[in-house]
C-alpha cells in the first residue's frame, strides 16, 4: 500500500517535472536546473555521510573535478571531436570516480573527525593548487566552452539544458536508489552502524569504504558535469569550502537519515536563494537562522518530520492535529514576521543610505521607509509592532506545542510503541 502510494507520488512529481517547465519563465527554468543539480549533489553526498556514516567536508573537490572534466570534453567537441553532447556528464562521472578512488583510498584509512579533516584537506589542496595550474584549470579565471548542437538539438535554450539535466538527474537518482537495495547498499549501512562487526564477518572494510567513497564522488562528478553544461564554464571557485559546506547544510536540513531527505534540503535552499537573495541583503542570515532552528527542533531534518507524519498517515487523528498545527503555524508566522521586521530595521538603521539621511538631517534621526510604510526610529508604533508580534507568536506557539504533544501522546497510546520509533536511516518507505 505505502509502496503503491510512493510510486504514484514519484510518478506525479516526474510528470510535473516534464510537463510544467515549458510554461515557466526563464528565471524559473534556470532555478529548476539549479535545484536538480543541487539535489543530485546532495544525494551523492548523503550516500557517504548519511548511509556510510562518513561525514565529508570536501565534496566540492569531486563536484569541481567533474565540472572541469566535462568542460574539457566540451572544448574537445568544439574543436571537432564527434561526441554526443547529451553524454557529456559521463566525463564528469569518470573523473569523479577516478579522483574518488584515489582520495577515498587515503581518506577512508581513518574515520570520524579524522576522516572529515582529511577530506577537508584534499578539497583545500585542489582549491589552492588549481589557480596556479594554467593549463588544465585556466588559472583563476577558469576555462569556458560552448554547448555544441547534436542531432537537431541546439542546446541553446535553458529549456533544452533543463531536460538534459532532468534526464541525468533522474537516471542518477534511480541508480542511487537501486544501490540502497543491493547487498552492498546494506553493507554500507552496516559499515556505519558497526564497522568492527563487518570486519569480523569477513568483509574488507577499507576496500568497501573506498568503493562507497568512489561511487559518491562519481555521482558528485555527474552533478558537477551538469553544472558545467549549464554554466558552460568552470573555475577554481568550484573547489571552495563554501560549496562543500553548502551541501552539508542542505543534507542536514533536509534530513540525512532518509533517502530523499537531501533532496528536500537542496530544493528548499536553492529555492530560498532564488526567491530571497535579491529581495534582502540579509538573506544569508535568514538561511543560517533556518539551519539553526531545524537542527535545534528537528534534528532529523525537514525530511524526517515529513516522514514521521507519513508513517502515521493512516491513523485517523488528522482532524485532531489540524487545529493545533494551524495554530502553531500562525504562531510561527508571527514570530518570523517579528524577526524579519527587526532584522530589516537594523539593516536600514545601520545602512549607508540612512547614514546619509542622518547627516543631511544634521544629527537627528529621520523617519525611514520599510515594507511600504514610514517609521519613526523612536516612534512607539515602530517598536510596538515587533514586540506584539513576538509576544503573540510566542504565546500561541507555547500553547499549541502543548496541544500537539497531547495529540501525539494520545495517538501513541492508541497504536502502541510504533509511533515514536526513529526513522530507519537511509531507507525510505
Amino acid at each position: 500500500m505505502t509502496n503503491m502510494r510512493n510510486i504514484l507520488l514519484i510518478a506525479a512529481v516526474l510528470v510535473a517535472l516534464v510537463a510544467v517547465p515549458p510554461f515557466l519563465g526563464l528565471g524559473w527554468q534556470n532555478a529548476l536546473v539549479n535545484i536538480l543539480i543541487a539535489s543530485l549533489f546532495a544525494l551523492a553526498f548523503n550516500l557517504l555521510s548519511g548511509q556510510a556514516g562518513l561525514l565529508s567536508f570536501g565534496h566540492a573537490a569531486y563536484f569541481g573535478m567533474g565540472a572541469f572534466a566535462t568542460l574539457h570534453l566540451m572544448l574537445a567537441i568544439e574543436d571537432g571531436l564527434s561526441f554526443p553532447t547529451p553524454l557529456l556528464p559521463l566525463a564528469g562521472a569518470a573523473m569523479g570516480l577516478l579522483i574518488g578512488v584515489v582520495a577515498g583510498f587515503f581518506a577512508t584509512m581513518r574515520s570520524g573527525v579524522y576522516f572529515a579533516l582529511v577530506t577537508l584537506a584534499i578539497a583545500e589542496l585542489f582549491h589552492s593548487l588549481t589557480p596556479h595550474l594554467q593549463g588544465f584549470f585556466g588559472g583563476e579565471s577558469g576555462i569556458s566552452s560552448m554547448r555544441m548542437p547534436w542531432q537537431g538539438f541546439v542546446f541553446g535554450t535553458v529549456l533544452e539544458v533543463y531536460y538534459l539535466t532532468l534526464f541525468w538527474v533522474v537516471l542518477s537518482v534511480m541508480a542511487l536508489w537501486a544501490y540502497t537495495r543491493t547487498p552492498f547498499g546494506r553493507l554500507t549501512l552496516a559499515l556505519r552502524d558497526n564497522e568492527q562487526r563487518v570486519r569480523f564477518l569477513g568483509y574488507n572494510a577499507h576496500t568497501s569504504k573506498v568503493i562507497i567513497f568512489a561511487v559518491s564522488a562519481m555521482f558528485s562528478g555527474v552533478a558537477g558535469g551538469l553544472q558545467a553544461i549549464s554554466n558552460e564554464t568552470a573555475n577554481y571557485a568550484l573547489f571552495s569550502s563554501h560549496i562543500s559546506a553548502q551541501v552539508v547544510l542542505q543534507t542536514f536540513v533536509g534530513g540525512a537519515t532518509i533517502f530523499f531527505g537531501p533532496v528536500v534540503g537542496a530544493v528548499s535552499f536553492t529555492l530560498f536563494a532564488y526567491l530571497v537573495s535579491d529581495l534582502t541583503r540579509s538573506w544569508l542570515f535568514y538561511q543560517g537562522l533556518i539551519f539553526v532552528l531545524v537542527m535545534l527542533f528537528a534534528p532529523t531534518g525537514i525530511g524526517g518530520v515529513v516522514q514521521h507524519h507519513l508513517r502515521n498517515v493512516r491513523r485517523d487523528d488528522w482532524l485532531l492535529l489540524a487545529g493545533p498545527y494551524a495554530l502553531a503555524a500562525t504562531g510561527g508566522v508571527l514570530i518570523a514576521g517579528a524577526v524579519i521586521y527587526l532584522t530589516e530595521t537594523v539593516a536600514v538603521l545601520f545602512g549607508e543610505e540612512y547614514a546619509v539621511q542622518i547627516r543631511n538631517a544634521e544629527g537627528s534621526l529621520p523617519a525611514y521607509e520599510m515594507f511600504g510604510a514610514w517609521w519613526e526610529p523612536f516612534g512607539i508604533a515602530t517598536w510596538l509592532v515587533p514586540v506584539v508580534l513576538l509576544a503573540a507568536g510566542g504565546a500561541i506557539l507555547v500553547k499549541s506545542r502543548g496541544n500537539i504533544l497531547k495529540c501525539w501522546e494520545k495517538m501513541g497510546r492508541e497504536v502502541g510503541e510504533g509511533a515514536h520509533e526513529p526513522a530507519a536511516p537511509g531507507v525510505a518507505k
Partner: protein
Amino acid sequence: MKKFAALAAVSTIALGAHAVQAEPLKIGIIESLSGAQTSSGRLYATAVQYGVDKINAAGGFNGEDVQVIEYDNAGGSTGAADKFKQAVADGVNIVIQGASSAIAGQITEDVRKHNLRNPGKEILFINVGAEAMELTGDKCQFYHFRFTTTAPMRVNAMTSAMKEAGDLGTRVYSINQNYSWGQDVQAAINAAAEKGGYEVVDEVLHDVNKIQDFAPFVARIKAANPDSVITGNWSNDLLLLMKATGDAGLDVTFGTAYLDQPGNIANAGETALGHYIANNYDNTAGDASFAEEYKAASGHYPLFVEPQTIFAVGALSQALEGVDFAGGDIDVSKIALALEDVTYETPVGPIAVRKEDHQTIRPVVVSRVVENARYPADDTSMGFEAVKVVPGEQAIYPVQDSCDMKRPG
C-alpha cells in the same frame, strides 16, 4: 556557421514570445552584495545608482526612467553565472560589474554566448573594475568595455611620477600576489624598468590572501636593499606587508595600486605616510565640484572604485544621448557603437574607448599619502595628495596581439 544559423533560428522562436513595446533601459549590477566582499560590491552599486539617478533626472532614456536591478553574485563566478541568467530573464540590456577579474571573465563569456544565440537581443557588459589583461586580450569581444586601468597603465604612471619626485631610486623590488593580476603587475614592472631607469632587484609572487606574517618576505626585501617596493597587492596582503615593513624599520617607498581601499589608511596608520598609489582618480586632482556634488548625494567624498564607476555611467549617459529608439525596442548594438565614439570629460582629463580592444584610454592619477590631507581618509588626519596626472595617451599601451574582435554586422 551552419550551427549558428540553426542556433539563431531556435533562439528567435524562443524569444518570439516577447511583446513588441517600449521597454525601459535596464541596467543589471552583478556584484558581491553579501558575504566578505560586500564593502566593495556596495561601492560599485552606490556609484552606478548615482550615475543613473543623474540620467533619470535629465529625463531618462527612451521615454522611460532607466532601471537599475541589483544581483548578488555571492562572491563567486558560479553565483555570477546564475545571476546573469536571471538578468537575461529580467530583460536586462546592460550588465555592470567590477569587483573581480574571475567574475568579469565569466560574465564576458556569458555575454558573448548570449549574444551569439540571441541576435537582436544583445547585452552589453560594462566592466568598471576588473583589470585582468586577458579581458581585452584573449577574451576581448565587441560587447565588453573596460572603464578602468590595467597593470601597465598603473605601473607606467607610478614609476614615472615617483621618478620625477625622486622617490623611485634605482633599485626596485617587485612583490605581488600569485595570480593573473599580480603576474600582470610584475610583468609591467619589468617592462617599465628601462624607461624608469631602475633595476628590478628581486621579484616575488606569493599566495593570495593566505599569508598572516610577512616578516620572512620583509627579510628578503631587506636583503635585496631596494629603494622602493612596487606591489599590486590589495586587502590584507597590502596591509600586512606594509605593517611588517614598518615594524622592521625598513626605509623604502611603496608604490601601490590599492592603498585607497577603505580602511587601509586607518589600519596602516603612520606607516602609510609617504607611500604612493596610482589610480583612476583622486579628489585632490582636478575640479573639486565633482567630489562635492557626489558628497551631497551620497554622504561621502568619492573613494576607491566609485569615481571610475561614475565616469563609466557618465560615458554611457553621453552615448545614450546620441541614440534614439523613439520609444521602440532598444538595440544594444547601437548603444555599443555610440559608446565607442564617446569622449567623456572627467575632472582629471578625457576618457575615450579604444575601438580595437575596448580598453579605455584614460588618465592615471598618482598620489601620495600625506599628513593633514585636504580629503582625510577613514576619519584619520592622513589622506592622498595628487602628485601627477598622467594623460591617457601617455599611460596607454599597445593593443594586445591576442585580441581578435568580431564587430557586429
